[in-house]
């Protein structure tokens, strides 16, 4: 029998050595934007274990199709057509349904549709660069897009971002909120990237690199990459720390 009662257990603590530290001088902007005091560790209260949820009915038909969602009728975005798909799991390995994912990325030439991006590469009139999806009952999601190009950025004298897609992920509790980036298997720019290297453990960086998934490739149409996302797990609610008798 399926347990339909929402879980209310406290979330597992974040492994702060696994995540990037706040202060990572190789990524220069972090220098002035990193708190210097220790974080104050606190247990979860109801403010943390609750969070907003979003219904599938808010999605438009093309929300997860970046090839078409900004294109003029009959047109499509320029670039290597790809599908990105995977599951959202929690740290216990449980597939999470109803999770809202938002994506954004540069176009195939490495240019963002944003007033602050003045890279030489041209905008694609048929590519906006945003999309979103909500996971199904098994935690699965997919999107179709064009592979984003690498781009240069002002940090060191010659830094280039590897091809990447930004992901924003909601869980069930507000403290599961996560923003991360997906990289592509085999990209030689990953080990050179100061932002990827803000993560100190090479094992952790690997979790952000999506492998090519030939099994899910659509012949003569689009290659597939598989990208699973893991959010904080939570304790069983059976023996939560509360006064006896409550």
């Amino acid at each position, binding site marked *: 029998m399926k347990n339909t009662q929402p879980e209310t257990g406290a979330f597992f603590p974040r492994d702060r050595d696994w*995540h990037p530290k706040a202060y990572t001088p190789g990524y220069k902007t972090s220098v002035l934007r990193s708190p210097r005091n220790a*974080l104050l560790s606190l247990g979860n*209260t*109801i403010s943390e274990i609750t969070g907003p949820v979003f219904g599938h009915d808010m999605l438009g038909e093309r929300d997860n199709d970046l090839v078409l969602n900004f294109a003029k009728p009959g047109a499509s975005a320029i670039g290597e057509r790809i599908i990105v798909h995977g599951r959202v799991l929690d740290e216990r390995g449980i597939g999470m349904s109803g999770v809202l994912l938002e994506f954004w990325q540069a176009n195939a030439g490495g240019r963002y549709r944003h007033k602050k991006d003045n890279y030489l590469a041209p905008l694609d009139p048929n590519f906006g660069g945003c999309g979103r999806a909500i996971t199904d009952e098994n935690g699965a999601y997919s999107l179709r897009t064009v592979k984003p190009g690498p781009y240069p950025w002002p940090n060191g004298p010659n830094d280039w971002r590897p091809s990447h897609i930004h992901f924003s992920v909601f869980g069930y509790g507000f403290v599961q909120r996560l923003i*991360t980036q997906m990289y592509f298997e085999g990209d030689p720019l990953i080990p050179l990237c100061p932002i990827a290297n*803000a993560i100190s453990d090479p094992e952790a960086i690997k979790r952000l690199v999506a492998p090519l998934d030939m099994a899910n490739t659509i012949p003569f149409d689009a290659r597939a990459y598989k990208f699973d996302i893991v959010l904080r797990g939570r304790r069983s609610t059976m023996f939560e720390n509360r006064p006896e008798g409550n």
Partner: protein
Amino acid sequence: MVQSLDFLKESPSQTAGPYVHIGCVPEFAGIKGVYPDQLGAAMVNDKTRGESIVITGRVIDGSGTPLTDAMLEIWQADADGLFNSPAELRGTADPNFTGWGRQPTAGDTGVYLFETIKPGRVPFPDGSLQAPHISFWIVARGINIGLQTRMYFGDEKKANSEDPILNRIELNTRVKTLIAASKGNTYTFDIHLQGENETIFFDI
């Protein structure tokens, strides 16, 4: 030999970067027509119960400069202290209040602004009441992992003095960094990433 503790590891965070607006507040980035509206822009409507308030402020870096490329999200209870969330098992929250908001800091001044209502008090796990508060999550270029903090209300002195979290804060000279100054229905809450007034951030 023992069984392995086969938990997965949380996906590591990466910065939201300078173009977070494209994905999260696309209308603000000038990308129109992909979605019908901007998620989190409206928390209230004309039927929402409670006292209407405005929360505004800046996110300030270690040189004293407000960030003009940050994004903030807030999460709070309704006027009766109930959350609009499936994990809220104590009752049903006001259907005309989302409890969740999302706003960018302005590209010129760095000011953010939320129109919401004052939250009711919610319980602490030991059964005592917390002071009214709003959870904040702040992301931006140069922030490697979203920063978590809370805003409390400057005009709730009694509730604040009883709050189990404010009372637990070891460095009580820093508690003031969590308390928004009130003027009429407007609360000003500046978030300092570094420096003398560095905001208390939580690992929660």
